[in-house]
C-alpha cells in the first residue's frame, strides 16, 4: 500500500464487484462478497468511517445496501456517473479530513489509476486485497476508544448540525448561541490516555507542533508533577462531540511551557480552541508564571498560528522550524457568552 503510513480515517468503497458480486444494473439481487460485511463492521468499531464512490444509480444502490443491512455504515455516499476522484474528494471535504487519511478500494485497475493520478495522497486498494484488509497496519489504529466506537454516530450528529447551520438564516455567532454548548476541561485521567494518543495521531490541522505522543509518554506526563495534561470535551444540543482537545503544559517555577495544543477539526468553527488557550493562560497567571508556547509550522496548521497571534501571543524566537511565543497574561479575555465552560 502506498501513502504516508498515517492511519486511514475513511475507507471509500466501490460497489460493483467490490462490495457485492456482479453488477447491480444487471442483477437487482446482487449478493455481498464474502467478508465484506465483517470487514465493514470491524473497521467501523475501530472508528474508521466508510463511504462510497460508485458509478451507479443512487436510489437503486442505496435501496440494495439498505436490504443488505449496510446502508447505515456509509457516510456521504457518492453514487453518480462522475469521475471517482471527484467522488473521493467530495467525501474528504464532507468529512473535513485530509486526502492522506482516505483509502479507496475498487476492483478496476482503471478506477484505481484514475484516483491515484488525480489524488496521489489517497491510498488505493485492489478489491482482491479484501481478505487482508482488516490486518493492514494503516487500518489498525492502536486503540479502539469510546470515541472511536462512536465516531460514525458523532459524524452523523455533525451532519444534522451542519444542515441546521446551513438552513439557519442569521450570523454565525447567533447560531453558536443556539447550540447550548458545554465545554469541559479536566486533567487527563488514565482512561483518557488512549483517546489522547489517538488525538495526537489523528489531528493535523489544528495541531501546534505535530508531535505525536505514545500512550506511555502521555501517562508519564499525566502522573508527573511538573506537567499538566488537560483534555477538553464538547457537548451541544445535538449530542456529544467527544474528547476533542488536548493541552500539554510543562509547569516550571518561572515558565509554563505549552508543548502541545490540539483541537479536533470537527470543532473548528466553535471557538473552543481560544477557550482552552485562555484557560491555560489563567492557570499560568495564577501560578505566577510566564506562559511560553511552542509552534512548529506545517503546511496544514496555519490556523493554530492564527490562534496564537490573535490571542495575545508574541513571537520571541524562531529557529530550526520551531517558533516560540510568549503570552500576554495581563489581560485575558472572558470566555464567550455562547458556551458554558466547566473546568475541573
Amino acid at each position, binding site marked *: 500500500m502506498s501513502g504516508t503510513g498515517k492511519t486511514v480515517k475513511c475507507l471509500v468503497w466501490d460497489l460493483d464487484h467490490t462490495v457485492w458480486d456482479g453488477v447491480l444494473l444487471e442483477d437487482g439481487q446482487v449478493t455481498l462478497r464474502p467478508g465484506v460485511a465483517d470487514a465493514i463492521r470491524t473497521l467501523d468499531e475501530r472508528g474508521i468511517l466508510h463511504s462510497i464512490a460508485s458509478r451507479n444509480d443512487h436510489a437503486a444502490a442505496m435501496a440494495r445496501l439498505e436490504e443488505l443491512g449496510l446502508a447505515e455504515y456509509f457516510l456521504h455516499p457518492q453514487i453518480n456517473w462522475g469521475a471517482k476522484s471527484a467522488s473521493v474528494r467530495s467525501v474528504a471535504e464532507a468529512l473535513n479530513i485530509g486526502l492522506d487519511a482516505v483509502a479507496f478500494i475498487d476492483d478496476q485497475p482503471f478506477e484505481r489509476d484514475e484516483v491515484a493520478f488525480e489524488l496521489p495522497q489517497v491510498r488505493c486498494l485492489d478489491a482482491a486485497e479484501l481478505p487482508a484488509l482488516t490486518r493492514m497496519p494503516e487500518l489498525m489504529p492502536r486503540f479502539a476508544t469510546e470515541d472511536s466506537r462512536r465516531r460514525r454516530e458523532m459524524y452523523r450528529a455533525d451532519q444534522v448540525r451542519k444542515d441546521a447551520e446551513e438552513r439557519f438564516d442569521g450570523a454565525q455567532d447567533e447560531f453558536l448561541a443556539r447550540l447550548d454548548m458545554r465545554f469541559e476541561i479536566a486533567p487527563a485521567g488514565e482512561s483518557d490516555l488512549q483517546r489522547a494518543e489517538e488525538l495526537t495521531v489523528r489531528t493535523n490541522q489544528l495541531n501546534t507542533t505535530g508531535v505525536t505522543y505514545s500512550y506511555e509518554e502521555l501517562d508519564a506526563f499525566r502522573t508527573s508533577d511538573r506537567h499538566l495534561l488537560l483534555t477538553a470535551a464538547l457537548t451541544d444540543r445535538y449530542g456529544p462531540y467527544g474528547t476533542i482537545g488536548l493541552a500539554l503544559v510543562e509547569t516550571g517555577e518561572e515558565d509554563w511551557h505549552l508543548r502541545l495544543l490540539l483541537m479536533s477539526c470537527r470543532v473548528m468553527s*466553535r471557538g473552543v480552541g481560544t477557550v482552552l488557550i485562555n484557560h491555560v493562560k489563567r492557570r499560568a497567571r495564577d501560578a505566577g508564571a510566564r506562559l511560553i508556547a511552542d509552534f512548529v509550522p506545517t503546511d496544514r496548521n496555519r490556523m493554530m498560528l492564527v490562534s496564537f497571534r490573535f490571542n495575545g501571543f508574541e513571537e520571541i524566537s524562531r529557529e530550526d522550524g520551531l517558533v516560540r511565543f510568549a503570552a500576554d497574561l495581563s489581560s485575558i479575555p472572558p470566555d464567550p457568552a455562547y458556551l458554558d465552560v466547566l473546568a475541573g
Partner: protein
Amino acid sequence: MDAIKSATREFIGKYVRNRELADSDDLFASGFVNSLFVMQLVMFVESELATPVADEDLQMDNFRSVDAVAAFVARKAAATPAA
C-alpha cells in the same frame, strides 16, 4: 477604499450579528475571536481583496476592524509595485 470597506463589512456580517457594525468597531472586543472566523477573514483578504497575508502580517491590528482591514490592504498595495 469604499469598495474594500463595503465588501469587508458584508463578509463580516455573515459571522457577527451586529448589523450596525461601524467601520471603526473592534471585532475582537466582543470575545468573538473564533479562530475559524479570523482564518476566514484572512482568506477573504487574500482571495477576494487580492492581498497576500504573510505570517508576520497576522496581527490583530491588521484585522481589528473594517477600517483596519482597508488600511492594511492599502498599505500592502502601496508596498507592491503594480504588475
